[in-house]
């Protein structure tokens, strides 16, 4: 039966195939969270079971144990080409930033060293427009200088499924295949496709993670949703924003803006 999820899926697969055809070398960030895991599923659909580019975890060493365990299991079960890339230590970060933002900066810096090491021209990244006001302004193919900086005031035109796909020397493309999905879309898709997911998302003792980040900066939210169906029901009525459990967004009104213009995902 035709379902709106089919449209979302088709659009994403089209974008993934477009990136694979036009950008070399290409890598994909896999944070092991629900979004990039749903995206990984879309990649497997796009390439008939194969994953034809590396999946990269920007590792701070601070992920939760369950996250590492889930990564290892899926890597083995699905025979995934995973690169575990260590981020630089926190001491090297800009000390004027608030602590949680500083922690998030480690990923940004990790991405920079990754780009330098592997010379990627394209990085597939599972952000969504509905997550946050700044991400709502993103393009599907979003060029970045290799220091990660994002010129949001002069973004390329993008229409009729035609994208800017080339970047000059010293720059790369961020590709966002699930930009048009919402949080509840992801869950409905997870449920329909029966995609495995890290069980930190399910409530234990009245709390669950809505979004997975590092141990020190992400906290569970109040919830009794212990399976996907209940999560969907919860999201259909909630008015709390998804990133409520993340401290960095709230430290200053504009910390996220600062992070993103400097290269954060």
């Amino acid at each position, binding site marked *: 039966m035709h379902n709106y999820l089919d449209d979302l899926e088709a659009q994403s697969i089209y974008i993934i195939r477009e990136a694979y055809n036009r950008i070399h070398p290409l890598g994909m960030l896999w944070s092991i969270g629900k979004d990039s895991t749903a995206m990984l599923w879309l990649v497997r*659909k796009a390439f008939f079971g194969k994953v034809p580019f590396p999946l990269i975890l920007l590792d701070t060493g601070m992920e939760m144990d369950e996250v590492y365990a889930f990564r290892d299991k899926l890597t083995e079960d699905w025979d995934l080409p995973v690169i575990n890339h260590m981020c630089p230590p926190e001491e090297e970060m800009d000390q004027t930033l608030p602590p949680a933002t500083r922690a998030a900066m480690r990923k940004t810096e990790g991405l920079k060293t990754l780009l330098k090491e592997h010379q990627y021209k394209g990085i597939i990244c599972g952000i969504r427009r509905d997550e946050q006001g700044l991400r709502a*302004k993103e393009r599907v193919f979003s060029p970045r200088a290799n220091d990660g900086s994002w010129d949001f005031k002069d973004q390329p035109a993008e229409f009729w499924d035609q994208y800017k796909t080339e970047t000059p020397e010293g720059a790369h493309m961020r590709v966002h295949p699930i930009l048009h999905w919402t949080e509840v879309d992801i869950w409905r898709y997870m449920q329909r496709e029966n995609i495995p997911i890290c069980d930190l998302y399910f409530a234990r003792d009245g709390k669950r993670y809505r979004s997975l980040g590092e141990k020190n900066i992400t906290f569970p939210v109040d919830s009794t949703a212990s399976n996907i169906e209940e999560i969907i029901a919860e999201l259909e009525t909630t008015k709390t924003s998804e990133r409520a459990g993340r401290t960095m967004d709230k430290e200053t009104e504009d910390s996220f*803006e600062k992070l993103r213009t400097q290269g954060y995902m």
Partner: protein
Amino acid sequence: MAKKNNKNHQQLRVVIVGHVDHGKSTLIGRLLYDTDSLPDGKLEELEKASKRRGEEIEWSFVLDAFQAERDQAVTIDTTQIWFNTDAREYVIIDAPGHREFLKNMISGAAAADAAVLVVDAAEGVKEQTKRHAYMLHLLGLTQVAVVVNKMDLIGYDEQKFEAVSKDIKKYLGSIGLTPAFIVPISARNGDMIANRNDELAWYKGKNLIEVLDSFEISSPYTVHPLRFPVQDVYRFDNKKRIIVGRIETGVLNTGDELVFSPTNEKAIVTGIETWPKDEQRVSAKAGEVIGITLDQPIFVERGHIAAHKDTLPMLSNVFRANIFWLSHKPLKVGNTYTVRYGTSEARVTVQSIDNVIDTQDLGQEGAAHEVHRNEVAEITLRAKDLIPVDPYTDNMRTGRVVMYEGYDIAGGGAINMQGYPDQRTSGKPKSENIYAVSYLVDSDMRANRNGHYGGIFWFTGLSGAGKSTLAMAVEKELFDRGLNPYVLDGDNVRYGLNSDLGFSPEDRTENIRRVGEVAALQADSGLIVLTAFISPYQADRDRARKCKPQGFHEIYIKADVATCERRDPKGLYKKARKGEIKEFTGIDSPYESPVNPELVVDTETNDIETCVGQVVDYIIEHVKVEQSSRDPSETREKTFAIQ
């Protein structure tokens, strides 16, 4: 964000456009508030942020995510936000209204199902109102509602509202847009958005939410002919070859025979591939992204377009487009760009800029040499090879192109093939087993007997440029000098050989094809063939040249439309202007001036005698038999006077 649990979660995409400061962002903020779609804490955040800036609540802050946007109170880039009414879910696209941000507006509006045009009640229709409306029209959006905002500033006055409405309707009407609704609102106060209110009691129509709920989500183009542009070809781990892509329009079934353009390769669909595997899958329709396998290992690559054999796209190396231009560098005649449409890509050169349109007053500014940023124009583009094209009026998905300048998207527009023929079918033998026999008499032998070589002298030019007059005069002159010329004239040929042909682009092409073949046979037999046909398409003339590459001379009989129209020897221009003749070259059918003619004869500035002399000299120079090459054994020498 909250979502109501209605069964179908398909979203309607609405773009909000309008002049800067007319209240787009405010309207969206208020729409979210009134439909109870603001996330927790957002209202408090708004109040706090507004208080810090010492103002009352600025609803536009909901959307304006950048500090710079909030500080300057302008939207910098397109943004999207989700909300829902009781009836369904929505994605709203907020497009900034500054002139220099047209690029962002198009990026947002191109994918929308419907549009809301915001007009300030006090200011009325402004520059951006018109420009945006025109873009909506160009992008093919037909579901458009107008809101007349800031009704509070004009005291909710019905007469003033009517006056503004009339203005808007007039402009929209002039570009072929009919607003489905015109709603008086106050975004700041939340009037007539989700509610009705006393001040606007005189307004009996739908409020904005009701208007939105009445719009329809665009449905996929399943009833159109199949277009399946190849996105990529996979063969992972040496397994079977899978051709992937999205069906833009139509339906594809296993067992269908597909014809790929531009190669004309054919193969039958043996399967629709999916992962995880689905053996039941035997059909796919517009909007679906699929992979297929074929029964033949034919050559297929990205950019080829698969279709069914009775409904193929046109093949052409020239097309017109109605474009909008976004680049800082002007588009210029002679410049080369990359165009992409679907997954196809081609290099094209701007042959002409036929018309530049002022979106303010819709003035037709006529032919030009440049199109500047944010302008709209009709242009003619030429590719090196034949490419598959659909006119936009036939297929809104495949009939549009995006133009690239270097890495960047520089413009885009709709393809218009009016007046251009399909070049797919011309000139291929229909039957097989044809073998050319070879002659025992060659062209040198003929030349020795006749005293000159044969050749084709192909006159091209507008009706009234002087082709027939010159051809007849030249023929007479050559004949008098002892040569063997013969004129093939347009009207004469149409009485007999081509009496079955009309003036449609296809018939014109066939007309010229036959003339080219006949001329080549005659030239081979030793005649100096002069042809006098408008032959408006370069592609046709190039094909005629291929009939006899060694002895073909393209002669441009040059006079512009104005001159020819003044002469109008057969009264045809007059009839064409009155619309009594359709598809008349130079009026409503294109004439492509020769790109590289062997000879140009300017009949505007020269009298007939001069022109005849010019052509005669040229012909004699090119058909004469060199003394040294003459066969000494030839006894019956013929000579002709070479001045």
